[in-house]
């Protein structure tokens, strides 16, 4: 029964870790708790009154929820930016932090699934999507593909991180025959989740703004900047509040990768803008709505140019090696990347795609208070999961949290990674 005992120890120990923390930790949890409660109340109202409490209508039938979903799929996919150099090129400074990329992916996918759940009109029927009790319209519906790839990607990351961490808890090296194939598989899967999510919009001939073959590459490029932007902030926090050591070299390398991704992102946006404005067909109306507004309808224009400004700023900062090594500039760059991609990939993708609607009507959408509260709640759940997972994962990788049977951690821990 050692396995059971070990597992019981692991669970008990994890709970103890999660239950202990300083004032900052509890303030953070309380803050998330308030957001979750507020989101829960708003969602309860949405369920009882219907999606009419959101600002979405027949003309703009998807809004803030699906925008956040799309953005977060990118964040989840971005873990791969770290996985590729770590495992394919065996580059050690990054390898030690890969696990945090995977934990981030897990919480991002949880948020994605929650955003889809809060968006559907009949959440009580979500099981209609789950064969064999439900029926998945596969392979016709790209949404069916998305359900499948997101869940597989979640499962892969879940298996890899729990395996590595639980083995480390017991003082053992992870099983390479399990981890390496799964990690290698997670690379195409990460590309897959974001490509499929792009195709979700891309395949709709009724919406010319989305019906551009450049959409999937553009999604990947923006994901590869926004995901690492979050991770860089998290890594700096970890370094500050725990004994975890992360080499400067690793952080500056990630920032360098982000600069290339941002270049690609801007280039693809530029290519799309050129096609729209130079050919100037009636389909340019959606891009024009985003960047210049149509007549008096100009709600989104400030967001569009803010996103452009932030993305250009981030690129400018990260392309300069000295700026990548300056902590202030690095963090400004991260925030700019995050905010720029968030505006671009969220509202900037969904709303102009649906405005004007297919019969030319302009309905100006702006999220309602209920939508903002629900969305904040979903983000809070994601951050809560990420925080709690870190609370357990960091001591394991530091060798501070291990089972009774585990050998004393050798100097130079974490051994698990070498």
């Amino acid at each position, binding site marked *: 029964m050692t396995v059971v005992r070990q597992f019981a120890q692991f669970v008990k120990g994890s709970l103890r870790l999660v239950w202990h923390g300083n004032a900052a930790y509890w303030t953070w949890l309380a803050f998330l708790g308030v957001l979750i409660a507020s989101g829960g109340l708003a969602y309860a109202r949405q369920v009882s009154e219907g999606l009419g409490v959101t600002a979405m209508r027949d003309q703009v039938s998807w809004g803030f929820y699906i925008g956040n979903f799309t953005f977060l799929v990118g964040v989840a996919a971005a873990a791969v930016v770290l996985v590729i150099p770590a495992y394919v090129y065996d580059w050690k400074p990054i390898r030690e932090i890969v696990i945090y990329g995977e934990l981030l992916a897990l919480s991002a996918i949880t948020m994605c699934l929650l955003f889809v759940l809060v*968006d559907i*009109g009949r959440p009580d029927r979500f099981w209609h999507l789950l064969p064999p009790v439900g029926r998945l319209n596969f392979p016709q519906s790209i*949404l069916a593909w998305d359900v499948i790839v997101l869940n597989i990607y979640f499962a892969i990351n879940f298996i890899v991180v729990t395996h590595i961490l639980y083995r480390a808890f017991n003082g053992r090296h992870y099983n390479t025959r399990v981890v390496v194939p799964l990690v290698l598989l997670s690379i195409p899967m990460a590309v897959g989740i974001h490509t499929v999510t792009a195709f*979700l919009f891309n395949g709709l001939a009724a919406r010319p703004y989305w019906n551009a073959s450049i959409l999937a590459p553009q999604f990947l490029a923006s994901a590869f900047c926004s995901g690492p932007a979050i991770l860089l902030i998290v890594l700096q926090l970890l370094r500050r509040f725990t004994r975890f050591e992360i080499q400067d070299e690793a952080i500056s390398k990630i920032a360098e990768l982000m600069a290339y991704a941002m270049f690609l992102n801007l280039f693809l946006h530029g290519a799309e803008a050129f096609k729209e404005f130079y050919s100037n067909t009636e389909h340019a109306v959606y891009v024009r709505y985003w960047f210049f507004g149509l007549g008096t309808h100009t709600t989104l224009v400030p967001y569009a140019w803010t996103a452009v400004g932030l993305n250009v700023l981030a690129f400018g900062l990260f392309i300069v090696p000295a700026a990548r090594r300056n902590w202030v500039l690095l963090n400004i760059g991260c925030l700019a990347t995050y905010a720029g991609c968030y505006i671009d990939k969220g509202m900037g993708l969904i709303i102009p795609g*649906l405005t004007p609607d297919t*019969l030319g009507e302009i309905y100006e959408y702006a999220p309602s208070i209920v939508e903002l509260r629900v969305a904040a709640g979903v983000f809070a759940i994601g951050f809560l999961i990420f925080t709690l997972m870190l609370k357990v994962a960091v001591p394991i990788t530091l060798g501070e949290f291990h089972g009774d049977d585990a050998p004393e951690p050798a100097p130079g821990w974490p051994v698990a990674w070498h």
Partner: protein
Amino acid sequence: MTRRQFTTSAAAAAAGFVLTACGPKRLHEMSKDRLKGLIAEMERKYAEQYGTAVHVADTAAMPGVEFAYALDISRCIGCRRCVYACVDENNQSRDPQVHWIRVFSMEKEKGVDFAEANPYYQPKEVPEEGHFYVPVACQQCRQAPCTKVCPTGATWTDPDGIVVIDYDWCIGCRYCMAACPYGARHFNWRQPTIPKDQLNVNTHYLGNRPRPKGVVEKCTFCIQRTRKGRYPACVEVCPVGARKFGNLLDPESEIRYIIEHKRVMVLKEELNTLPKFFYFYAT
């Protein structure tokens, strides 16, 4: 509870779950018997809700029939009687208002251009000078983008060409609304309301039975009427006879005559949706 009772009931529950899980879930795939039972249950609920007997038909598609629609743009005067006849016939929500037919007022010199059209025109009299009208509802596409994208298969094309939705299977993801080039799908953003005395009690389970909130609905060519050989409500009410309806497979039908002899167009033909809703110019 004894152990035997527990085991028996657990086994029964498991068997029940497996049977439900493996059986067909969408209404149209069920055995006739099971469908009858569910319809009886529906009728009971509606009767309770509206305080009157409601009939829910399950009339199937007739063999050798493919319905099609034609609309004479040169004749339509933009009176919107069709819009409200449709609301009454199909039990559309009055508050919030749901309209399956939208009529667009267009300027003659601009042609059929939705970007310039106005669906909210309010003149003292119709038709207005220099304008013509294009009513739009579901085009019942042969290659319907909405049925392709539905993740649960809750919407499909029945054998007589009518695109239908199973309101009991739709999860309300609204992917079909993003995919439809004609704005023909409508979501129940709130609980639909129909005054009790205005309920049309002659319904079809894939058509005009009262809908729950949180699902998508659409025009079904008045499935409850047309499968019994009647015209759709909008055809019947049109004061100028601009609306035509019939069986595309019948060479003697009016719809075939129109397609063969008139100048016909379909909306957004470049999207290759192949509508069965034809606009024509009779004069």
